[in-house]
């Protein structure tokens, strides 16, 4: 154990009870109390399933986090990544003392401020000025600290003109900017940030990330940052922790962390679609198989930039769907969606499926627009009732490259897609 760990987490666990509170919980509470009176351990602590949302467990209890151990050094920006439901938010909640852990312990040397949401406690009737003070105090600042930073906050939010107007009259962008501005001027030793950056326009997000970077680099503060966005993780963090089903599966540097996370996803694509358990939706249709073909309809192993690509998806239809929507997303190894195909947008007419049985849906991409690389394909089917089936990393797609522009040159592109274009001097 290193000496200057600013946060130390040991055997941390958090158990939740599933279902609603009612007479059933009362009997458990009475039982728990009775065991306690007799000096015994809580009988429900021993049970509980691993937090895997896709399978239905036998127990009413679930461990959102179990046996999590890690340390954070002062000045470190730790990124926490993981799929939805991996336990990221629960971890943040425990760190920010919104709720207490079931087992284990966290030791922090310094003041923690948490930003699980921007604008917590904003009151719509109060003016911008009043809300800056209120929100600042909720986040743990004293009135004096806020007064010292007041001009800076207003300046950062860029709303000096509206400062005496009730925030209910603010545009949503202005509201978020003001809220973030207050939070950004907090001066805790440890800052815990959830995906609050997902709000606001691109320019503001950039400003927000810049501010966080400045806070940690310039002032040596420790930041814990949870995000789905691999780009901002890469941009901001210097260490990464990957959570899966409530436990830590990776700790280390950013590049390998992101690789680990994306690979964990890709690994799943080696399992046949029929057997995949990690799917969501109402099961009106279920994806069975996915293959790619060239323009002649012959199966291929790798796609080529600029050449036609057919994506054939076999679906099993369990229930007649009125207006099925199929979506195929192409995601790169940083988790960024490069492009997607959706028949709702690209086709005028509705798609007609058979009533039941297996059917092949073919998506034709005349000029495949991605450069050389490895991508992950996500399949989703919607109906009027919502998501019917959804599989992340349904297949790993290797693009071998190719001469997209027919110029004989190698195309290098780290972001976005290839689009045909010409230039001329006028």
């Amino acid at each position, binding site marked *: 154990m290193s000496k200057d760990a600013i946060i130390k987490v040991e055997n941390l666990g958090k158990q939740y009870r599933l279902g609603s*509170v009612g007479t059933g919980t009362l009997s458990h509470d009475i039982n728990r109390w009775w065991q306690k009176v007799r000096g015994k351990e809580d009988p429900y602590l021993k049970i509980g399933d691993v937090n895997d949302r896709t399978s239905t467990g036998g127990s009413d209890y679930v461990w959102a986090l179990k046996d999590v151990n890690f340390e954070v050094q002062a000045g470190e920006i730790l990124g926490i990544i993981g799929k939805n439901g991996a336990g990221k938010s629960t971890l943040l909640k425990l760190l920010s003392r919104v709720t207490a852990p079931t087992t284990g312990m966290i030791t922090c040397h310094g003041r923690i401020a948490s930003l699980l949401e921007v604008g917590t406690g904003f009151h719509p009737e109060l003016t911008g000025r009043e809300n800056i003070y209120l929100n600042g105090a909720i986040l743990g600042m004293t009135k004096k600290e806020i007064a010292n930073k007041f001009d800076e906050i207003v300046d950062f939010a860029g709303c000096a003109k509206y400062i005496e107007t009730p925030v209910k009259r603010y545009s949503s962008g202005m509201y978020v900017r003001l809220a973030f501005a207050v939070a950004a001027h907090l001066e805790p030793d440890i800052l815990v940030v959830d995906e609050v950056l997902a709000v606001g326009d691109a320019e503001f997000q950039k400003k927000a990330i810049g501010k966080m970077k400045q806070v940690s680099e310039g002032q040596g503060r420790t930041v814990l940052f949870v995000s789905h966005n691999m780009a901002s993780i890469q941009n901001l963090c210097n260490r990464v922790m990957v959570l899966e089903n409530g436990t830590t599966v990776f700790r280390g540097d950013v590049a390998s962390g992101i690789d680990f996370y994306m690979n964990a996803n890709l690994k799943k694509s080696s399992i046949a679609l029929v057997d995949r358990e990690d799917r969501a939706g109402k099961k009106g249709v279920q994806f069975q198989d996915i293959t790619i073909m060239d323009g002649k309809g012959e199966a291929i192993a790798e796609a080529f930039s600029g050449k036609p690509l057919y994506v054939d998806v076999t679906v099993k239809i369990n229930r007649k769907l009125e207006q099925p929507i199929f979506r195929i997303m192409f995601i790169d190894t940083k988790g960024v969606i490069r492009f997607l195909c959706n028949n709702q947008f690209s086709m005028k007419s509705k798609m007609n499926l058979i009533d039941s049985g297996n059917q092949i849906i073919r998506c034709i991409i005349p000029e495949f627009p991605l450069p050389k690389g490895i991508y992950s394909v996500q399949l989703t089917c919607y109906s009027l009732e919502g998501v019917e089936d959804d599989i992340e990393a349904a297949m790993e797609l290797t693009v071998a490259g190719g001469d997209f522009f027919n110029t004989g040159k190698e195309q290098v592109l780290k972001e976005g897609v290839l689009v045909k274009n010409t230039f001329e001097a006028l």
Partner: protein
Amino acid sequence: MNTIDKTHEYTLVIEPKTKLLDFDLKELWRYRDLLLLFVRRDFVSVYKQTIFGPLWFFIQPILTTIMFMVVFGGIAKMSTDGLPQAVFYLAGIVSWNYFAEALKTTSETFVTNAGIFGKVYFPRVITPLSIVVSKLLTFAVQFFLFLLVYFYYLWFTDATLEPNLMLLLLPVLIVITAGLALGLGLLITALTTKYRDFRFLIGFAVQLAMYATPIIYPLSEIDNEKLRFAVLANPMTSIIETFRYAFTGSGEFSWFNLGYSFVVMIVLLIVGTLSFNKVEKTFMDTV
């Protein structure tokens, strides 16, 4: 890297086990500004976008007093201990209002503030404390109304009003009322985080309790010994009787009864704080 050693002796340990009494007064003091800002928010936001502002706090006690004068004074012809009806009723209503409003609002602390509590940490007890203080401001406004009416009767009519030294007890009365409301409110809000059954009770329990307090009748009118005992068991009884006695010289004052209210307040505060402490750390999971 080496800054943490010298600058932050502050160490925080987050653990599952809640101690029976785990009250960090130092931390509470650090958040004093938040308490004041909450008070300001609660008081100010009520009358934003109104022209009369805090004057609206007059309306409720005035209308209630008129109602009581018509129904209980006029129709039922109940005694007011020889006092002008307006003074008699208003004295009771103003003090009772403070207790009732503070109790009702504090008892819903966890449920109404779940949004904030779920996102950020601050000592939870700040919220009920701020409610008790902001309701005190409302009380101050309504008390001012009472004074207007009182001085009108004192100077411009020949009503027998005899203000006396017991007026010095006024701050004590207010503190006991606040303590009673806070203690009971903390207890109820702690009980309702998981099982909300009590919430249904509190609304009309407060309403019914008003009739068990000498607001529309003087304590001296109760002849039945058992009934009298029951009404005196209500800790608010001696508060309101003392309040009235201090301003008018009529009513019942006894150190014993006031002492009883004080003891009840202490007990409620202890029980309330303990139960609040027990649930505050994990209530987010069940609320």
